[in-house]
């Protein structure tokens, strides 16, 4: 009895976190600490100094971003390393891109939120707190190597996002979007959990931790080699991939997207369409190249078909829509299709530069989305959820800088050369062509053509359509911060493509 207890003690000591483990998630710890710091500031600062909260949050996020990009450090190991006794895994070729995507989305959302909540009755400090928690959870999610890490960080992010979607408590639309997201998200996480349980049960046995990705990979390969891939495993696997596809917003799990994106406060819409989609893409990539890699021959056609359907469904639905936020939401579905196509190609080729392609695409998409969102929140509207195309009419005369923000953003989203969005799409198309995935290639090309139609319908309304001469044109005041941000992001759409080429 005593001796077995001594053994248990030894086992615990072997599994206990070491200093190197904590150092590997230092950027995440910093972001989580920043979340708490926002709350402390909200409690201690007098009302006249509240503007400090978003400012410190942004400065700290920029510092963490610089820190996360340093190579050769504990949090950017040179080769794939497992930490926390198998709970997380960092790989050199994707860690920087993953962290940069999430930190950039958080930073830009903070700018949007500060402007958006200036004229609305909602506290800015709490928004930043939840935003930081969600960002830290997403960063952990993308490096998880165990289903406990995956589930807990996915749910932490999801619960935070429910709050951010329903943040405008006096607005019926925001609450309705929050409740719809809650029910859809709760359903997807229940299905995901059931999938995890089935995989755990059907592959597990004495001495096998069948929640660990590496051990699932081994057990699945052994089961397939013995010719007994059980039905339970397959059902579980399908449910898990469905849960990730829900986050990504891929067909057939995209039904929640238009309503939630339209009703959510615009900064949250931007966050959902960048960080949340990125989380879905990275998780899906992690799952199909990690634990489920032995099934790659069966998964690849499935992913390719899902990519084609997602591209077409998103684009065709966006064609029939006239609300700007809904158009952006549905075009986001078609961007998810591009990401799925890239993931399918990575599964087939096993290419190591796949994660980088996906990171570049996500960053390009984020820059475009935030430019358009910045232009949208500067426009005075009665209801945040009601933004018809007509409301943009005459924007060029009212504020040239907002019209140019819209132009650069939409140009990058639609993939007009020489914007970064064009090169991101081109790299994925080249990747698909190299692998002779002609059906997916064709669907992607067709979707670019369709997307140009509805993207430029937005731009035409803002720039080309004349306003009545009798109608008084009210010039819009744009603050210095917004102008600076629009300038920086517009420059990024052009200069970013140079960076893509340098690599």
């Amino acid at each position: 009895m005593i001796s077995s207890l001594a053994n248990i003690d030894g086992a615990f000591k072997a599994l206990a976190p070491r200093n190197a483990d904590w150092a590997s998630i230092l950027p995440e710890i910093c972001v989580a600490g920043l979340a708490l710091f926002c709350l402390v500031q909200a409690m201690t600062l007098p009302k006249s100094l509240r503007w400090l909260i978003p400012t410190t949050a942004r400065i700290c996020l920029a510092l963490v971003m610089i820190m996360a990009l340093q190579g050769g450090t504990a949090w950017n190991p040179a080769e794939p390393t497992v930490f926390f006794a198998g709970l997380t895994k960092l790989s050199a070729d994707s860690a920087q891109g993953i962290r940069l995507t999430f930190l950039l989305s958080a930073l830009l959302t903070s700018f949007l939120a500060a402007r958006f909540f200036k004229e609305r009755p909602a506290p800015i400090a709490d928004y930043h707190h939840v935003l930081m928690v969600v960002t830290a959870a997403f960063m952990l999610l993308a490096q998880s190597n165990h289903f406990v890490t995956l589930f807990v960080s996915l749910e932490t992010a999801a619960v935070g996002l429910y709050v951010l979607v329903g943040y405008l408590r006096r607005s019926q639309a925001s609450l309705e979007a929050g409740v719809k997201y809650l029910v859809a998200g709760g359903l997807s996480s229940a299905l995901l959990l059931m999938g995890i349980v089935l995989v755990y049960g059907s592959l597990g046995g004495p001495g096998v931790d069948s929640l660990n990705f590496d051990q699932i990979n081994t057990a699945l390969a052994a089961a397939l080699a013995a010719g007994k891939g059980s039905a339970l495993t397959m059902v579980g696997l399908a449910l898990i991939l469905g849960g990730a596809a829900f986050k990504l917003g891929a067909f057939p799990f995209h039904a929640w997207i238009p309503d939630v994106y339209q009703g959510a406060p615009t900064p949250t819409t931007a966050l959902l369409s960048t960080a949340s989609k990125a989380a879905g893409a990275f998780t899906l990539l992690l799952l199909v190249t990690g634990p489920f890699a032995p099934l790659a021959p069966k998964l690849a056609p499935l992913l390719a078909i899902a990519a084609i359907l997602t591209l077409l469904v998103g684009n065709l639905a966006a064609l029939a829509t006239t609300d700007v936020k809904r158009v952006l939401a549905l075009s986001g579905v078609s961007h998810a299709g591009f990401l799925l196509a890239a993931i399918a190609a990575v599964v087939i080729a096993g290419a190591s530069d796949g994660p980088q392609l996906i990171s570049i695409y996500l960053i390009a998409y984020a820059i475009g989305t935030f430019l358009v969102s910045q232009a949208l929140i500067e426009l005075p509207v009665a209801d945040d959820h009601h933004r018809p195309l007509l409301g943009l009419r005459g924007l060029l005369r009212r504020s040239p800088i907002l019209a140019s923000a819209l132009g650069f953003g939409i140009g990058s989203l639609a993939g007009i050369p020489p914007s970064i969005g064009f090169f991101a799409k081109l790299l994925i198309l080249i990747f698909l062509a190299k692998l002779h995935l002609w059906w997916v290639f064709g669907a992607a090309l067709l979707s670019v053509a369709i997307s140009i139609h509805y993207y430029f319908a937005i731009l035409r309304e803002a720039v080309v359509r004349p306003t009545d001469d009798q109608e008084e044109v009210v010039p819009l005041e744009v603050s210095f911060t917004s102008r600076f941000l629009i300038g920086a992001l517009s420059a990024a759409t052009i200069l970013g493509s140079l960076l893509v080429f340098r690599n």
Partner: protein
Amino acid sequence: MENTTLAHHLLLAGLLFALGLTGVLVRRNLLVVYMCLELMLTAATLALVAFSRFNRTMDGAIFVFFIITVAAAEVAVGLALIVALYRRRGSVKSDELVTLRD
């Protein structure tokens, strides 16, 4: 109790899960829908414990604590949203959620 097998536990878990899923898809009252979601999570937890017991691995049993914690956080936020919506419109019927449309 001697002759309960894994299949019995899984059958019960599967029934509970199907019940919850049906409720989410069929019922119109948001509170009931939310209760059904929690029922689905509980069904998954039951299957997890059964697998943990019959596979003789402890990992699943430990996972249950995380699931319970996460479910509690989700209920706190979810009920807050539903109550706020009720205060705003005086109803929690899902077919009356028609503010968002094109």
